[in-house]
């Protein structure tokens, strides 16, 4: 048994769900998210052993791929050609209706702000790590985070969902967000 492949297999098993969620939250399409994640992981397989930080590496690939998706007619076609019906639970509970309202609010966010929020609060990346992944400055990331939080809070409020302020964990961002709202 190839020890490198076994290590890769364990890595995929441990990270697959997180990466699926990351891709979906960024692009809002499960099919594209799954295609992107599987393709990026297959690419990682080829480079396995030569990448110093596989998690960071593949996260960057996934985020860029889904962000770029709109500019990639080839990927769109490739994904669409393998359309499989999504399996979605019937909307029978308050929990699900709330989830739908959350999704609606989330996907009204500008893509840049949504991507930053997903990286920071779902993937738990720092400002610096997010900046590296997206190729932007830390200052831009802080600003995008603050604006994204402010926008999301407003969008969720319209759906009667309250968002707590991230005072303890994201003090700077929250302060910026308050300033934006107040200002």
């Amino acid at each position: 048994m190839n020890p490198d492949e076994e290590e890769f297999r364990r890595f995929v098993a441990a990270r697959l769900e997180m990466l699926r969620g990351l891709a979906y939250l960024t692009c809002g399409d499960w099919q594209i998210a799954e295609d992107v994640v599987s393709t990026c992981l297959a690419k990682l397989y080829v480079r396995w052993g030569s990448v110093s930080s596989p998690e960071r590496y593949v996260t960057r690939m996934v985020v860029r791929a889904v962000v770029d998706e709109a500019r990639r007619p080839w990927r769109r076609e490739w994904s669409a050609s393998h359309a499989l019906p999504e399996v979605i639970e019937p909307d029978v509970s308050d929990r699900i209706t709330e989830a739908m309202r959350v999704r609606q609010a989330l996907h009204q966010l500008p893509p840049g702000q949504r991507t930053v929020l997903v990286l920071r609060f779902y993937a738990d990346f720092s400002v610096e790590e997010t900046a590296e992944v997206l190729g932007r400055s830390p200052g831009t990331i802080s600003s995008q985070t603050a604006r994204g939080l402010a926008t999301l809070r407003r969008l969720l409020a319209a759906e009667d969902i309250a968002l707590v302020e991230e005072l303890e964990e994201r003090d700077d961002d929250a302060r910026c967000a308050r300033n934006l709202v107040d200002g």
Partner: protein
Amino acid sequence: MHDVREILLMAKADAPPARYGVEDIVAAGRRRSRRAFVQRVGGVGVLAAAVATTAVLSAVNLVVPINHGVSTAVSAASPPAPTTPAPSPPFTFTFGGYQVGEYRVLAPDEVNQTYQTAGVLRDRKDARGKVTTLYVGTLTVYQPTTFDPAKFRVSTPMTVQGRDAFQYETQQPVGGWSVGGRAIGVPSDGPSISFTVTTNALAWQYAHDSWAVLSTETNPIEAVFPLADAIEVAERFTVAPTDPVPAKVPFRTGYLPAGFTLQSVSGQSLTAENRGMVTFVYAQPGTTAVSVTISILWVDTPPPDAVKRTSRCNPGQHWCATTLPGGKFWVAVEDPSQTLSDEELLKVSDDLTFATLEDPGTWYPVS
């Protein structure tokens, strides 16, 4: 009240069952590793199609022929003049793969009216004996009299195979990304940083007024092709004494726009170690301003139930895609100039009949 993470988890709470499991991804990685051992065109994958197409079209127009005639007659009083070989028939390969030390020159698999190209690999063995194969360069062999060495004459002169040769070095800005602050090349997923790399090219004459060029890759990690080694590889190059081998195409065309003929072949196998796709360009002779480019690509994650051939075009984007039965391959038909209509491109696509794509022995020789 929810925090942001709770909100995000809620948004993905009704995830559908995963379509791809760990073993699917490992299998896809194996396929990718087998067929696309380096990312020659910025990453094997869907984006590569457009990049490769652009490269092919650019290359067709790259070289300005300086003399399409045969060599001139020599008077009896003149000293013996070197003989320029006759050009090989269109779309034929005139040399084979060969090995020099750690370097492997692959059999050529790209050809047009002006030149053939072959990849150059290096099998490097580390101290523990583990061999790593890298794509380090490209060998381009021009038809006699078609290469203009003017650009190279300003560079370092030398002698290779007993004739004038030149080494040309240039700095190229490229996009890439870094891991731990170290630039690792040009990914398929979009550049994030820019840096400059040194590209070397060695031009020499394999026969009188018949030029070949060995150029290194622009990927900084893979650019391990020192000039001294390139000279060794160049010195060993020979045109095969046997008959030229016609290029093959994995399909027959039914419909093409009026006057369109084959202009460029890129790839002779979908299972070669340096190939993830093949591309064929059709246009009116002498110009690729408007072309039909047909590419065949592997599907990374084949669906289990692809049983029929389906085609569709993206309205107004001048390209159509066809998924073939079995789900292993898809075909892209495009007009990069965005001149031809979707209907015309779809007709080209629908009228293609395919050989067994995984078996180059069934492909059709260019007639």
